[in-house]
Each structure stands twice: as C-alpha cells, then as structure tokens.
C-alpha cells in the first residue's frame, strides 16, 4: 500500500462519528439477520419479522417470449414454495426446534450471503430493498444445496432498527433441484 493511499483512510474516531447512511443501516440489518439464521438463532430471527409479514417464494415457470407475466406464480392465489404469515413461520421454527424433524436432524450448516443491495423506495413508513442472495447449505456428510436468486424486502422502521414487513424470494430454479426446502431465505 502506498503512503498516498493510506492517507485516504479515515482515522478510526472519524469513522465512528460519521452517522451511517440508510443504506449502510439496511445492509447491517440484513447481514445481522443472515447471521441469526446461520447461527440457528431462530427465535431471534422471528423477532425481526413484523407481525403482519408476508413471506412468499413463488414457483418459477419456463415462459414464452413476450409473456413474462407467466414466469412467477401469483401470491395468495397460486401454488408457491412459501406463502406464509408469521404464525406459520413460527410453526416451522417450532418444528425445527424439537429434535424430531428428521429432514433437519441434525440441523444443516448454512451460509447466507446478501449482496447487490439497492434501496428502491423509501419513506418514513417503509423502505423497499432489492438484493441478490446466495445460500449454501450442507447437511450430514455430502448433502449440498445451493440456492441463488433475487429478493425484494419491505422493511419497516422499528425503534432504532427495522422489521421485515414483506419478503418476496425469487429462486432461479423452475424445478427444485433438491429434495426439500427446510431453509429460510
């Protein structure tokens, strides 16, 4: 590193003193959320979800040129991988936590990566964020799953932090290439 470049790095106290931008706060929040999932702190993860959350992962179809509206199944109407509220997400977590849910016993190892983050709309009440995700899951010895796709989150300011009001997960797979979906996104 040249001495010229190192001069551009802010002294530590300045970095702390600078208030984080909204984007930085959102980034921090989503990184923290991913960590809770990867550390299997599912109750803490649930606490980040708004009571009225809509958590939705549609099916993906191979569609005809000029008919992009055919690509994803519709929320609230069609089949989906997930079309959930908080009560059913809580049930899924209760299922995971009993030691008798054999598809996740022993629990998987996972790493959630959240990237390409962009705030696409923001008001006092709501922030809409788009990102890409990459979720690596490894279970028992050699079960490996790789989920990659796009996400749109609607966050709601809450205390000094956020709650997730809505999450739409667009997985880049029309056929699920794995035997089950026991992972949260």
């Amino acid at each position, binding site marked *: 590193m040249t001495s010229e470049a190192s001069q551009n790095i802010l002294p530590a106290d300045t970095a702390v003193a600078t208030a984080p931008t909204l984007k930085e706060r959102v980034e921090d929040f989503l990184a923290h959320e991913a960590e809770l999932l990867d550390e299997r702190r599912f109750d803490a993860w649930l606490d980040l979800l708004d009571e009225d959350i809509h958590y939705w992962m549609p099916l993906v179809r191979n569609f005809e040129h000029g008919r992009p509206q055919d690509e994803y199944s519709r929320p609230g109407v069609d*089949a989906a991988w997930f079309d959930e509220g908080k009560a059913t997400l809580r049930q899924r977590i209760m299922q995971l936590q*009993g030691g*008798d849910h054999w598809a996740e016993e022993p629990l998987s190892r996972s790493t959630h990566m959240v990237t390409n983050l962009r705030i696409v709309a923001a008001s006092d009440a709501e922030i809409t964020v788009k990102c890409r995700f990459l979720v690596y899951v490894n279970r028992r010895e050699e079960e490996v799953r790789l989920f990659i796709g796009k996400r749109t989150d609607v966050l709601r300011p809450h205390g000094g932090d956020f709650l997730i009001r809505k999450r739409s997960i667009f997985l880049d797979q029309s056929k699920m*290439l794995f*035997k089950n979906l026991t992972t949260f996104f």
Partner: protein
Amino acid sequence: MIYEDMGRRLIDTDSGLVDRAIFADQAIYDKEMAEVFEKSWLFVGHESQIPDKGDYFLSQLGREPVVVTRDAKDEVNVLLNICTHRGMPVCRYDRGNAKLFTCPYHGWTFANNGDLTGVPLRAEGYGAQLDRSKWGLIKARVARYYGSIWATFDEAAPSFEDFLGDMAFWLREFMMAPDGEDDGLEVVDGILKCEIPSNWKFGAENAAGDLYHDVSHKSVQRVGLALTKLRGRHTWDADPAKFKLLNITFPAGGHAVRGNLYENPGRDYQSQWAADPEVDAYFRDAHYARQKRLGEKERLLNRGGIVFPNFVYNAANRTSITSWIPRGPSRTEVWKWIFVPKKAPQAVKDAMRNYLLRYTGPAGMVEQDDFENWGSAQVGANSILARRLPMNYQLRLGDHARWAWPERWIGEGALVDEGVSEHAQRIFYDRWAEMMSGTPQAFRQEAAE
C-alpha cells in the same frame, strides 16, 4: 409370488421379502421401465389445467416428455414432445396456448392435435414426396376420468377402465368435491416439482399403505397443522367417531387405498376448520350433502392411495396428486398437483390452499420428512453388504386379509385387511413382479376365502 430374474430371487411376497437390488440395480430399472411403465396407463395432468381450446402444458409419461393439449375440436391430446425429424422437443414452455408448435431446428410445424402441417422445402427439397400423415407427433392413447387425464403409448395395453378395475370407485371418489359432487376439484395453478435421491418405488409403495411411519411425522403432529385449533396434522383427527382403518387393495391391478370405515352411518359433522367459521360452515354443509349423495358408502373416508404404478393421491382435505417420475435407479422427479373444490367460496379455496402448501411437497412440513426417509432408505438399497438381507415386508403377514371384506360394496376385487400392516405393499410388489416376469398372477396365499 416369486419373481426370479438375473439369476436371483427378487420378490417373494409369500414370505414378505423383497431384494434390495430392485431399488438400485440399473438392469432391473431398465427392465421395469419397459415392462411396468411403458405398459401402464399413467397420469399426466388435470383438465382444469387446459380449460380453453389451444391450451397446453408440458408433462411426463413415465420418462417420456409429452405435451398435453386441448385442440380445436375440444379433444385432449397427449403428444410425445419430440420432433419427428431430428428429435428436438417442439414445445419448451411449461404451459401456454398455441395452435401450432414449430420446431426450432428446421421449422417443421405441428398442429396442436399432433398433425404435421408444415415442412419447409417440401416442394423442392422433398419433391412433394414426403407423406405428412406419416410424420405427425407420436400420439398416446388418452383416457379422461372425472377431470384426470391418463395416457399410454402401448397399443396393446387393456382399456383404461380395465386397467383401473374396481379402483374406479376410489379414484372417482377422490375427484369429487367434499359434498360428493362428481368432478368437483380444480387444480391450484402451479405444479410443485422437485428431485429426490431415491428410487421411485419408495414413494409409491409408501402411499399404498404405509401407516407404520408415524414416528417420521412426530414433529408436525406436535406442532399441529390442521385448522381445527387442535394438535395434529389431519382434519379428521378432530372426529371422535369410531372407525376401522382399512387397507383396501386391488391385486388384479396393484392399486391400493387407505381408508376409514366408520362404524355408524350418518355420523355428525365435527368441526374441522374451527379457525375459520365460514370455511367450517362450508365443510359442515358438504358433510351432510355427501351423506345424502353417497348413501351407505358415506361411511368410508378415502384417505389416499395409489393407482399402480406411480400415481399417488392424498384425499380427505389434503387433496393432491403426486406423480413419481423415474430418472434412474436412485433418482426420482416428484410432480405434485394440489386441488381445491371448484365451486367452494373463495375463503374455502384459500384455507385449503394454505393448508396444502404447508402440508405437501418439498416445502411441506409433512412431506419434508417423507422425502428424507426415502433418500435415506436409498443408502441401504445401494449398500452391497446390506443386500445380504432382503427388505422386510412381513408386518401382519398372515391370513387375515379378506376378499371384499368387511363390506362387499367396497368392490368384488378388493382384498382388504384392517389396521397397520404391510399387506398393501405386498400386493404392490406382487403386481410389480407379475409385470416384470410376464407371468399371470398365482393364487394369493394371503387371501383366506
């Protein structure tokens, strides 16, 4: 019956033993594709997927890719999705509406009834000698049964009705609305498709009658899934009425059903959707309407079953169909259609859809654990050492199964037993062995006349 092949005994259902090789061996797999899948009627989809003329969807007939169409004459066609020129799939969208399918390679064009209608260079290149009538898409024989669509490419196969035999009552009953109205279901848009690392027979035989694997579903039983506000995963868990649990099998075809036979006719409705009064009211009315329509047969609760070899349905409010599509000895593609009652209020459709999405498929809280089981059972099937021991299907092997018992109207060809047993699986493998060996079935020792 005993099926001997490739120098070893594979199936001995008189002793309740099945060689693990049938779940793992490539040569056996190849043979079962030819002898079992290509000679059976197979489910491809539901008519509510193609309500209008020109509608189509992609499906699988066993391993073969097909496109299912509703043509201009309102006929349903099941066409091999392979161009007759060089073998390209002519349709590559999961569903849509089209009069014609034009092959992207050289542009041969097929009507949605399979006819070859256009060939570039026909006049100069083929000298007008190409007989278009000989080069249409390969068409399957098609049968429609209360909304379900079935097909086979085998010209020599018996009619669909003969293939189904006495199972017809149950398949029809499944396709009814909760109020007993014929052809009362519609598909929820979107088929759940996933891949599991196991042989197709594990899922198929499980649905024939494995009532023995409760430990697998302990977690969902604990958490609760049914909308009765009670624990449990089935809506009938709330019903205190006394019933016999029956394994109803049809040895002639290999089909099987799991059902409750209630002791007394005219049982009262027990609230099964208490979480939502409007939904509960619908099911209450439906319960009594069904009693009227079905008469004595209303004592039966159809819980689900299998049409041999790979069509599985879940009934009793968990209305879904699963097709087990073999992709190799230890690889299966699972396709799942979910259904709601066609004429029900929107609130009912929503409630059932929500229940089903949490129940079924790779994201379903119940079936996640089933898929885990079959993937794990494949470990044992692939183990050469484990193959020293056959798979054990001896649960309640004996003489307690009876023809058309306890009620003759269940079907003359029904061989029934009661409670938790592996009777239905023994029938499943009996039929499998019969098709593999081409030998007509022998006397079935289990049936005590």
